[in-house]
């Protein structure tokens, strides 16, 4: 049978500890550095952080 390698899943077999974690899929990794999505997150995160900063002063 043909071998199916999904690179982002390989680390599950490194050891038992890693086997029991969640590892991001290719889609999740792509979104982390997708400039348009991250620009939106940049705005959202700044607003969230400013709220926490305001609550703390």
């Amino acid at each position, binding site marked *: 049978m043909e071998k199916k390698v999904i690179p982002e899943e390989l680390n599950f077999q*490194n050891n038992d500890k890693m086997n029991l*974690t969640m590892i991001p899929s290719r889609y999740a990794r792509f979104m*982390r550095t997708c400039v348009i999505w991250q620009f939106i997150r940049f705005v959202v*995160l700044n607003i*969230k952080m*400013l709220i*926490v900063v305001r*609550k*703390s*002063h």
Partner: protein
Amino acid sequence: MARLVVLGGGVSGHTAATFAAKWLGSAHEVVVVTPNSQWNWIPSNIWVGVGDMSKQDVVFDLAPVYRKGNITYKQAKAISLNPEGKEGADTPFVTIEYTGQGKEGQTEEVTYDYVINATGPKLNFAATPGLGDANGLGEYTVSVCTADHAVHASHELDRCIEKMQKGERQKFLIGTGHGMCTCQGAAFEYAFNIESKLRKAGVRDMADIKWISNEAFLGDFGMGGLHMKVNGYVVSSKLFAESLYAERNVDWIIGAHVNKVEKGKAHYELLDGTTGVEEFDFAMLIPPFAGVGLKAYGKDGSDITDQLFAPNGLMKVDADYTPKPYSEWKASDWPRTYQSPAYKNIFAVGIAFNPPHLISKPAKSPNGTPINPTPPRTGMPAGITGKAVAHSVCDLITKGEGVQLHEASMAEMGAACVASAGRGLLTGTAAAMTVYPVVPDFDRFPGTGRDTDYTFGEIGLAGHWIKQVLHYLFIYKAKLKTGWTLIPE
């Protein structure tokens, strides 16, 4: 004219001194005593440690800034406090020893009306044999705690990269160098910045990277971890921390007290009492923190250090230090005004104050070795406590003794923290996190101890951009450039 003396020109001391000088104007004097000639934006030392920034990018000279801020600057270290003065003179004073300004080694007695202790941590490398000694960092490991340490770390990293390029495998060990360390976040950032750097250098497959820390679980960060809402679930930071380590193939040892370091070897004891040895070619192990060792003397010259300071050298403030079990810890144990109970004109801010207890659950190995993170006091709480105390002192000076002191309890304030996981304008990532409050309050927020509407974390490029913006913003603010007071701590 009243005189406020601020000991330490780091994050909290600089904040306190600059705001106090602005609020007091020229009617009163603000003096800063600090041994360094330059201010260091410490969070960016991580990037210096992987060669992505130079030392010059993260420091600037203090003298011109203090001139501009109308602050008297003494490049010296404080040695002792005499809160009641001395025989024949009632005015309290601090004894300092110059480290610069052409007066190196000279001592001076600086009288004060109010003093703010913002001396931060002593990097206690000597606590772990082989990690260092009384003079500081030893020869077997590197550090990123100061800009100079980070420059050295970067050179050592380059040497490892060269070896890997020649086909020699290298083992990296990053984490904490003692069972009672704090600042896991900085080690976390360094581990992932190294990982990212090695990928960019094309040698990641030649490196084994291992994390070793005193946390009982990954993602504890000295705060007992945090819970956040993600995709309809409320989950522990443990899940996300483990996920990142697995994704980047960084193996981990947790619940570890590193008890001895030798050339290429770290010896450790685990929470289950077992011991082990981890080999390395490159290691960055954060030292435990202690107070800087200030002494205090009574009017008659008697040693009263134990009245002002806890045995770890950190200053006692208005916290509830009564020893009690974890189940009885309360948010109200944490200090609110940072005033010394012994002397009302002495305050301590940032890392210099002694916390009432840990935040993480205390843990010991069967051999009795405490292995638990001590509470972190990151930049934001350091800045906020510095500003609140500056406000109190200004009110005391301008309005008189009876004023209500300003309050800033870590059990009521949040903290925003951005942990870099690799630099790059379009490829960088960082975990952007906020916790509210820093110290969990299970009475107000039963379950997680924190408000999950304001406690969150997320990794991505946006976090990296925020970290980069904060780098420029906080250096801009610390240089007292136009509008600096508008930038929050």
